[in-house]
């Protein structure tokens, strides 16, 4: 193993030598670029780490002339960014709830879990755990209503529920759209095209703000669910088109061959067609999921205290408003951790599936 990494490292060095320092001009340009890069990195490190102030007790030091980043704001206000308006003494619940969603996502990434039953079980357990912990009244804890949910835990919840609801809906729509029954086909294509021609913001605003005016009380439900369902529908319509691309990549002959062998529709679909569809649609699906994670920030406009709103609240007070950069960087860091891991996981899946198809 060590010899291999050493070998790789040598190869890398040789390659750099050949490509970037081959001629004098190349060497000069490379040196200038490297110096510039080093300078930028140094400036950032100097600001963010070396001259930074770390604890909220030292906040006075942030006001000094040569102070760097003031991470005191994170020390003092990170709970707002993470948990929004959730009651302070109950934050352990919000933490556990977050972990249960993250754990569920990680668990369902393991190939061992990839059967419908196992996946369904883990998601139902993960979700129930989240809801019971956050809401509380059903397991004898203090009740916390959904308008107090917020921060990272709300963002994760919205993201997970949108994808979870949207995926099967998207699959159903994709199947309907290529169904042989005209009613289903026409219904699906009209629905998909209608939703896709509406801006997400309008859809969510309607669900959150307009529905309570026009619907009777018993049909309204909690605002958060209306928004999640609307968001999931939106996701589903795009995902249906992504999956349609996957379906089109599969030769019709496979279906016909399956039928000729007397295999049932469900078996053809779930054992022959869908595994291939998902393989073809994987890059775009990962793309959709990543975009959805970021788009959850839109719910700020209908008054949800998701992570960006809570970051805004974290620096939105007289004592801390000068340090908005640090707070926003912190929030960006959180996004990066989640989305980068998601992207890497997508890469892993692709390699895995290429191996499988060989």
């Amino acid at each position, binding site marked *: 193993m060590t010899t291999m990494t050493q070998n790789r490292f040598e190869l890398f060095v040789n390659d750099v030598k050949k490509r970037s320092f081959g001629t004098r001009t190349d060497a000069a340009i490379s040196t200038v670029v490297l110096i510039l890069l080093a300078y930028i990195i140094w400036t950032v490190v100097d600001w963010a780490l070396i001259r930074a102030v770390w604890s909220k007790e030292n906040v006075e030091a942030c006001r000094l002339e040569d102070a760097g980043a003031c991470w005191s704001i994170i020390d003092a206000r990170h709970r707002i960014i993470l948990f929004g308006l959730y009651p302070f003494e109950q934050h352990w619940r919000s933490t556990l709830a977050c972990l249960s969603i993250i754990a569920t996502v990680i668990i369902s990434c393991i190939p061992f879990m990839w059967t419908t039953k196992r996946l369904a079980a883990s998601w139902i357990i993960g979700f129930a755990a989240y809801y019971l912990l956050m809401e509380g009244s059903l397991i004898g804890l203090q009740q916390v209503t959904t*308008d107090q949910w917020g921060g990272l835990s709300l963002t994760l919840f919205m993201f997970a529920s949108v994808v979870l609801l949207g995926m099967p809906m998207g699959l159903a729509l994709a199947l309907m759209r290529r169904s042989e029954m005209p009613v289903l086909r026409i219904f699906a294509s009209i629905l998909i095209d209608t939703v896709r021609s509406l801006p997400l913001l309008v859809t969510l605003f309607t669900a959150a703000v307009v529905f309570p*005016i026009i619907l009777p009380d018993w049909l309204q439900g909690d*605002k958060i669910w209306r928004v999640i369902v609307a968001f999931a529908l939106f996701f589903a319509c795009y995902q249906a088109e992504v999956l349609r691309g996957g379906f089109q990549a599969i030769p019709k002959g496979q279906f016909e061959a399956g039928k000729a062998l007397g295999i049932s529709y469900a078996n053809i679909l779930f054992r022959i067609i869908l595994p291939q569809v998902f393989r073809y649609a994987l890059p775009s699906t990962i793309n959709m999921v990543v975009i959805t994670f970021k788009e959850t920030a839109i719910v700020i*406009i209908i008054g*949800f205290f998701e992570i960006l*709103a809570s970051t*805004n609240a974290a620096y*939105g*007070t007289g004592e801390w*408003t000068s340090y908005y950069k640090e707070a926003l960087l912190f929030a960006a860091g959180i996004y990066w951790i989640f989305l980068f891991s998601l992207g890497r996981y997508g890469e892993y899946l692709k390699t895995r599936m290429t191996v499988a198809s060989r």
Partner: protein
Amino acid sequence: MISKFVKFASMATMALAIPSMASAEISPTVKQIQDRGTMLCSGHNGSYYGFVEVNDKNEWKGLDIDLCRAMTTAILGDPTKAQIVPLSWAQRFPALQSGDVDIIIKATGWTMGRDTEVGLQFSMPYFFGGAQFMAHGDLGITEAQELEGGTVCVEAGTTIERIVANHLQTLGVEHTMVSYEKAAELQAAYLANRCDAFAAWGPFLAVLRATQLENPDAHVILSDQLSNEPISAAMRQGDDGFVDMANWMLAALLIAEEEGVTMANVDEMAANPPNAKVARLLGTDPGMGARLGLRDTWAKEMIAAMGNYGEIYHRNLGENSPYKLERGLNNLWSHGGVLYAPQLD
């Protein structure tokens, strides 16, 4: 003589009004609040300096929040029964119409369009904010009259630009006006001493001075109030009883300040009221409650929980806050401001 007549007339009308009031139904919104056991107020999707913020304990704070808590105490007797619903600016009026909130106390200006077309009803104003100047302290000036020959910076294309030009023209002050496209540019220009003064919304200037500038004491907000927007609580049209309640909640906070009733001395004042007005206000003499369909001690409980108007102001915008915003117009009429309470009879 006249006042005697007025007194007589008002007593006569009151006597006539009592039977109809006794049969008058309690406001539907108040009924809902009492049945629900919580009052739904507007919060913000983030924070609006001094008015709606979140403290280190993940709880709402701010002038608007405190007023909501005061009103909740008046109706339900407990400030913690206020439930603050986060709302964006765009969402606040539909949310009120659909019943997501009972009242909007959210730095909302009282305008004709909102009062008529949008279908809202406004309380009396509880805050006045408008365009003001901020100047470098070393100039040693305190009012716009002294800006003679100076350079004034404003944001281009805003109403403030016109208001400033108008105001300085009226005062006959010779000046050079420089406008900038963005607030950030404007701020930078001011800090680089390219302008002697700059004009913006008063509370915004105060926040800027308190938080973004290296040395707040080196800048002074001039006393001139160039324009004025009344900030009121907004309610659904058609619930007059609830509007009355909002008005009298604000009135009670102002009367308390006028009479020197504070969070600290309210119990003492209630036990030994210095005059009949305080006795009535704090429920030592009965009458305050029945008229609004509340307890006689609602104002006392409210002040015990949140303090009088001055205390609420200083906690959130004034001297006890990071912003140190002068009372200015938002002082009692007897102290040079424009806030006044209707008569408590």
